[in-house]
């Protein structure tokens, strides 16, 4: 079993979806600094995707300092360095742009997005299941 979950959706490249899943696992704490990261072969077998795709995802994650190669041990989840707030924000620039573009396509305004972001933030922070309270069976 993998320490994180990838549900492939059509559209985005597979390697980006793997990168995203790992980032999410690191942020939510499912992967912790020092945790061993699965080998390229294990990952490609488990996800049944091309090993080169996995290699590309791992290379990207290493470049972004989320993973680190430790000689003789393998790939591990990195300690997140004391990056500046600006550095961290820069990591999200593309995602924010995409979100804004999508929102405009749907004719939503910025208040709608901010509200949706707040909701998601709270959900992850409180580790609540990802469904809306309104749909809970009483």
């Amino acid at each position, binding site marked *: 079993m993998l320490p994180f979950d990838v549900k*492939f959706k*059509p*559209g*985005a*490249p*597979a390697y980006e979806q793997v990168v995203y899943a790992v980032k999410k696992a690191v942020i939510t704490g499912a992967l912790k600094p020092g945790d061993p990261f699965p080998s390229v*072969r294990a990952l*490609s*077998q*488990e*996800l*049944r*995707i*091309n*090993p*080169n*795709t996995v290699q590309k995802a791992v290379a990207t994650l290493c470049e972004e300092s989320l993973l680190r190669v430790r000689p003789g041990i393998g790939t591990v989840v990195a300690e997140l360095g004391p990056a500046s707030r600006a550095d961290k924000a820069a990591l999200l620039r593309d995602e924010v742009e995409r979100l804004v*573009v999508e929102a*405009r*396509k749907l004719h939503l305004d910025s208040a709608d997005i901010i509200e949706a972001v707040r909701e998601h933030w709270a959900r992850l922070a409180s580790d609540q299941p990802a469904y809306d309270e309104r749909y809970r069976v009483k």
Partner: protein
Amino acid sequence: MMNAIASSDLRRRYGRTAAVDGLNLSVPLGSIYAFLGPNGAGKTTTIKMLLNLLRPTSGSSEVLGTPSQRLGPAEFTRIGYVSENQQMPEWMTLRQLIAFCRPLYPTWNDPLCHKLVSSFELPLDIPLRHLSRGMRMKAALLVALAYRPKLLVMDEPFTGLDALVRDEVISGMLEVTEQEQWTVFISSHDIDEVERLADWVGILDGGHMYLSESAAALQARFRRMEAVTVDPARLPARPPKSWLAPDVTPHRFTVVETEYVGGASEQRVADAIAGAEQIAAAEMTLREIFLALARTFRIRP
């Protein structure tokens, strides 16, 4: 040697029908190559000629540097072949089949063999004829993988397998990927089966290659372009040559751009479609690219 498989003007006729009609194929070493095409496109005929199981009417091919027609027992120790209609000694048990195959291959790897027996959950002592189709396919793959071939050729390996067995077959196949320059050539009529597996894609139609390209190159040049139009959109009389399937609904324009260049392609939409706004380009999966091509050129997917 850069290619694991190469063919030049390969042809095979059956009477007046050309099953394979001047095929030029290059499969790079180290790739997982999806050989796609509808049933009857000539995939099996091609594979049989490549592996010297069928003589071509004309043309030539090479596999791992050896001309196909000179492939013999020595070369087949480096090639694994699994087909939809695999011939196997049905009266043997898997244990007997393994004992039979093992001495034929100098590179036979016992630990890998044992690992595959257990991950495929195959019974060792039941005659193969009593096994299900999926189990027989896994048994065939097992004896083709256990000697770590340099090239694995699979002809429609997933036909008739349920999703669970298909996943097992793919995982088993990927077991061997540790090897450097390991090449897999899979034929399939269904892009879904190989979409995230392949890094090279060839589409065979009417006996010749319609397209053969790396997945990365294909995905770099294909984009689904969308725009919103204030007034009802109208298509230009002569749309750009790189456009596939341009389409308008009253306030929306979509097209598949086959030669995407960031900026220039968006400009091309703006120039061709009056009043186009919010022009966006989205990356496409191999499946979406295949379907767009199939629809336009009537390749039956």
